[in-house]
């Protein structure tokens, strides 16, 4: 019996395929589990958590742009404790690798959150230092190598789980941040989070979002995200998980060839809930066509 050509190991965790639902776009799995066979996914990164939870931002929260969308959800979430007691086991039962995405307003929140997550049966902690939608939020940590390294190192010291640091494309020097996180002990990196963008309601003569700026995602950003993944993957030796506008197996292959060992898919799931299943099928077909024993053979060939 031929083994599964899509399987891989990420941070010591075995994934049945490299297609992971991106944080904030898949809840904790419940909603899409009603619509599609989520057990087929490689992993699920849950909605970004903060220590005490949050009601998120006021006003308009989602706004479509050409081939993309801006969001200003502002990390609405039920808090880490709720996740540990009510969501983690549900996610585990779904089958795919379980990734908890942790944001924070300050160092204490991150460390306490990471500490609490030690009680949860998760596979990977995705350290979100790149959410652009919360004032004094995660992104502040992700902009500079020093602060990114500092929080990475401290969370690593607290957490029993592998730590994957999620990077911001808005960092002035993304490669330096990536290297700093690697040096600080990160087990993997994921990128990109959303790009800081703006929308204006011309009729009302005002910004669409209460925070004025919001986060851009979707196919529109793919060319920039792909370039960043290529740059970062060439600068570090830890695994990189790539994302940003992936819509198809072909898009996913681009990120793999650019150096990502796995991908996450976010916005496209909104447009087409079954997009990730199509992508997984497409990657299988690709391995068959190309006669690849394992898809990882094409990782970083560019």
């Amino acid at each position: 019996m031929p083994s599964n050509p899509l399987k891989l190991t990420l941070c010591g965790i075995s994934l049945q395929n490299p297609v992971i639902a991106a944080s904030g776009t898949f809840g904790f799995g419940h909603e899409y589990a009603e619509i599609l066979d989520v057990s087929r996914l490689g992993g699920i990164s849950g909605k970004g958590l903060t220590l005490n939870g949050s009601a998120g931002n006021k006003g308009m929260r989602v706004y479509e742009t050409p081939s993309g969308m801006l969001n200003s959800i502002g990390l609405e979430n039920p808090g880490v404790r709720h996740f540990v007691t009510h969501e983690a086991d549900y996610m585990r039962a779904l089958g795919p690798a379980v990734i908890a995405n942790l944001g924070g307003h300050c160092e204490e929140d991150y460390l306490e959150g990471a500490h609490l997550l030690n009680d949860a049966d998760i596979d990977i902690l995705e350290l979100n230092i790149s959410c652009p939608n919360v004032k004094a939020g995660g992104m502040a940590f992700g902009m500079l190598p020093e602060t990114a390294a500092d929080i990475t190192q401290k969370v690593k010291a607290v957490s029993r789980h592998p730590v994957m640091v999620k990077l911001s494309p808005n960092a002035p020097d993304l490669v330096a941040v990536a290297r700093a996180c690697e040096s600080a002990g990160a087990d993997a990196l994921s990128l990109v989070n959303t790009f800081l963008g703006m929308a204006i309601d011309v009729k009302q003569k005002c910004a669409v979002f209460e925070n004025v700026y919001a986060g851009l995602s979707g196919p529109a950003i793919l060319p920039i995200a792909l370039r960043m993944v290529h740059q970062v993957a060439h600068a570090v030796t830890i695994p990189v998980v790539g994302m940003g506008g992936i819509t198809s197996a072909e898009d996913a292959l681009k990120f793999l060839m650019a150096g990502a060992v796995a991908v996450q898919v976010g916005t496209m799931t909104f447009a087409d809930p079954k997009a990730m299943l199509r992508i997984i099928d497409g990657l299988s077909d690709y391995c068959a066509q190309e006669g690849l024993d394992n898809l990882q053979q094409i990782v970083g060939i560019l």
Partner: protein
Amino acid sequence: MAEIIKNEPIANGIYRMSVFGAPLGRAGQFFMLRVPGALDPLLGRPISICEIDADKGETTFVYQPIGRGTAQFAALLPGQQIEAQGPYGNGFPLKGGRTVLIGGGIGTAPMLQLAKELRKSDPARKIDVFLGFREEAYLEKEFESYADNVTRNIGGYVTNDVDFALDATYYACGPSVMLRAAAKAADEANASLFVSLEKHMACGVGACLGCTCQTEHGRKRVCKDGPVFDYREVRDAI
């Protein structure tokens, strides 16, 4: 993927589209409609079920081309495909006894399937329908198949026509001003009123938290926990 059977204007700036192959839903639910293939417009557009013909397997939508997405729908012809994801949302609760349906503008659309289901669930009940339009009425005739009375109002406040003091269940869908007026009247008359809310949506299934609102019972998602709510629960979100 669903196939377009019909897609025609039924009034100035109002289209009716019937599709075959979309899973059958129920009154108050909606689909995320999307022209397949292109990545712009990217997201589905939430459009309510206006009528279901279960025998033919057809679902009918009535929509207003106001922006890029809906304008694209208006250009589609029979035989072409449309992605219809859903049905999503909770739908209207079908209560017993007398019912009063209030639709404002394009908010009349989901009321038609509601009238149909209410009638089917109880052929003998009384169903009063109030329709408000800014300039031109539509769907009136269709409502007459299921309702006892259809009252229409053009250019005024449809809620002024409604007696909220009946022993009845009230259902309303329409612009915020209309829903607020209905809520106020229901408050005064202590009536039972269900409203269908609208919010900008990305996923339509409850995953993105783009459409949440504050309710009496904590934060709820309009797409998943709604769009239909007891008006008392969502008073601040109307």
